[in-house]
């Protein structure tokens, strides 16, 4: 049984100005610290499923990793029974953080709090406390298990929710499941490692950038240099009436048709798929899933502060990949999509600039593709950003500004 965190209720604690046109985004939402705190509650512990990992990251009983759901630090752990759980990373007694590191195994030792030596089993049940003499007579260990999030998985993708009204995962993902399946296949993956970096931008600017197909050829100079283009595709917004996920589909130029400006062009090579089609997915609000070229990548978007966002890029191979394919994925993944990746630095530079000038107030405007009111959009459109903010505004309790159904 999931434990649901207590939530604040009512509207936002700040008066949120939102223009009547749904293609205008008020810049204050990227700089207001009160709004940021409200989002951590209303969005991340609201009725959403937050992507927190893939089972390949914790393959063995007792394996765990740490992450956060909005502002809530959690442990994603595989129990001795093989089941994946998401536990609050704070002792139920006096709140000390239980595990500090990014990962480990607690099958034998359990989680032991350093402060008063309370010990929890890998499933979060309290196993023992030190010196329990003189505790109140009504103290019962079963009342002090670690709070748990609801957990649902799809093909090994692990989702957590701290809200009791979140719809079942299949209904939440809707037709996005087909896109996820294209990337993760049957879900049998091998974890290759992660790279984490702080972007100096608000978390929403990071996420909306992925909904935006307009910037891709304009900003990513590397694509222009090698003459890599999109040969068709579309941007879908699965479940846009409720959650507003993003499913971008695109077919890029084959490596043998690119301008060979690099001596080693394997950066842009596709060896594991019959075509150069790829998917770029956002599971609203903060999970990114992509199979760009031969890279299988999940990204966790972790808000740190109103102007700082930690992005964890995680890389995978398929379980049955031959070693030379694994090696290719290891060489290609971070070289394209990561803190030193050929098409990532530009996003960091652009988003930092948008963040820096957000103090100027006024509105950001979304134009390309907006004459269409509903998905599907063209792959070069930025119009899907509107649906991200409609879903966001519904969670905040602000009128979503969405047009009536077609």
């Amino acid at each position, binding site marked *: 049984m999931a434990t649901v965190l207590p939530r604040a209720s009512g509207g936002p604690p700040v008066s949120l100005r939102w223009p009547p046109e749904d293609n205008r985004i008020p810049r204050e939402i990227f700089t207001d610290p009160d709004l940021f705190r409200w989002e951590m509650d209303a969005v991340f512990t609201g009725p959403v499923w937050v992507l927190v990992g893939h089972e390949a990251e914790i393959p063995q009983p007792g394996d765990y990793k740490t992450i956060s759901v909005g502002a809530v630090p959690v442990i994603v752990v595989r129990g001795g029974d093989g089941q994946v759980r998401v536990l609050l990373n704070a002792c139920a007694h006096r709140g000390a953080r239980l595990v500090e590191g*990014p*990962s480990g195994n607690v099958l034998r030792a359990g989680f032991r709090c350093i402060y008063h030596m309370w010990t929890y089993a890998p499933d979060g049940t309290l196993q023992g406390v030190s010196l329990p003499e003189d505790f109140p007579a009504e103290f019962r260990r079963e009342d002090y298990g670690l709070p748990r999030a609801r957990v649902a998985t799809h093909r090994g993708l692990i989702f957590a929710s701290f809200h009791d009204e979140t719809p079942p995962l299949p209904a939440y993902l809707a037709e996005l499941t087909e896109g996820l399946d294209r990337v993760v296949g049957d879900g049998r993956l091998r*974890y*290759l*490692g*992660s*790279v*984490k*970096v*702080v972007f*100096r931008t608000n978390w929403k600017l990071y996420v909306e950038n992925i909904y935006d197909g307009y910037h891709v050829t304009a900003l990513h*100079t*590397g694509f222009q*240099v090698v003459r890599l283009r999109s040969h068709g595709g579309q941007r879908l917004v699965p479940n846009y009436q409720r959650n507003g996920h993003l499913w971008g589909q695109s077919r890029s130029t084959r490596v043998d048709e690119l301008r060979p*400006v*690099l*001596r*080693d062009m394997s950066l842009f090579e596709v060896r594991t798929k019959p075509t150069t089609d790829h998917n770029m997915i956002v599971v609203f609000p903060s999970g990114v899933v992509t199979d760009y070229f031969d890279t299988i990548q999940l990204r966790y978007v972790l808000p740190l502060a109103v102007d700082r966002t*930690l992005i964890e890029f995680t*890389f995978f191979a398929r379980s049955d990949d031959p070693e030379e394919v*694994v090696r290719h994925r*290891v*060489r290609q*993944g*971070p*070289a394209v999509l*990561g*803190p*030193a990746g*050929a*098409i*990532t*630095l*530009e996003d*960091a*530079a652009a988003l930092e600039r948008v963040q*820096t000038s957000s103090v100027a107030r006024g509105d950001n405007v979304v134009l390309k593709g907006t004459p269409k009111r509903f998905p599907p959009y063209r792959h070069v459109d930025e119009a899907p950003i509107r649906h991200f903010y409609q879903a966001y505004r519904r969670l905040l309790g602000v009128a979503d500004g969405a047009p009536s159904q077609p």
Partner: protein
Amino acid sequence: MSALSDVTSREQAARELLSHYVRVVDDPERVHEWPDLFADEAEYVVVTRENLERGLPVAVIRDDSKDRILDRVTVIREFWGAGGRLEDRHYNDVRPRHLVGPVWTEPAEDGSVWVTANFGVWLTPSADPTPRLLALGEYRDHVVFTPQGPRFRSKWVILDTAVLQDVFVYPL
């Protein structure tokens, strides 16, 4: 030249290669000289201590051939609009500053030298006067002696932080 002084001069030459490296990577105008410091067979790897200790193969940068090392300069200059003359830099314009030391050297029996050193890299963005600590860690270098002089056969940059504080434009 005696065996002892030969070893000493090789260690000294390896130290000078590292000093020269710092001079080159601190200057955006000289980024094209960076590959010259590597041997024809060479690797340049930047990895977090976390992935290294867990045996995970993903590195932040894995330039595992001289071709990839040469390509990095193309990526820096043509993809990212950085490096080169000031008027050619479009964005990502930062001034890196490496602080290196202490440096330890250990000669190998084949005449090469292993060099380890502590390092920190600060960035001063042109648009923001506040310097940022980009990375802190350890160099593990293998220096070989070619007819052209000492060169890196491998340079491993091991980062203490699992969470990088910024994206990487110039070599560490």
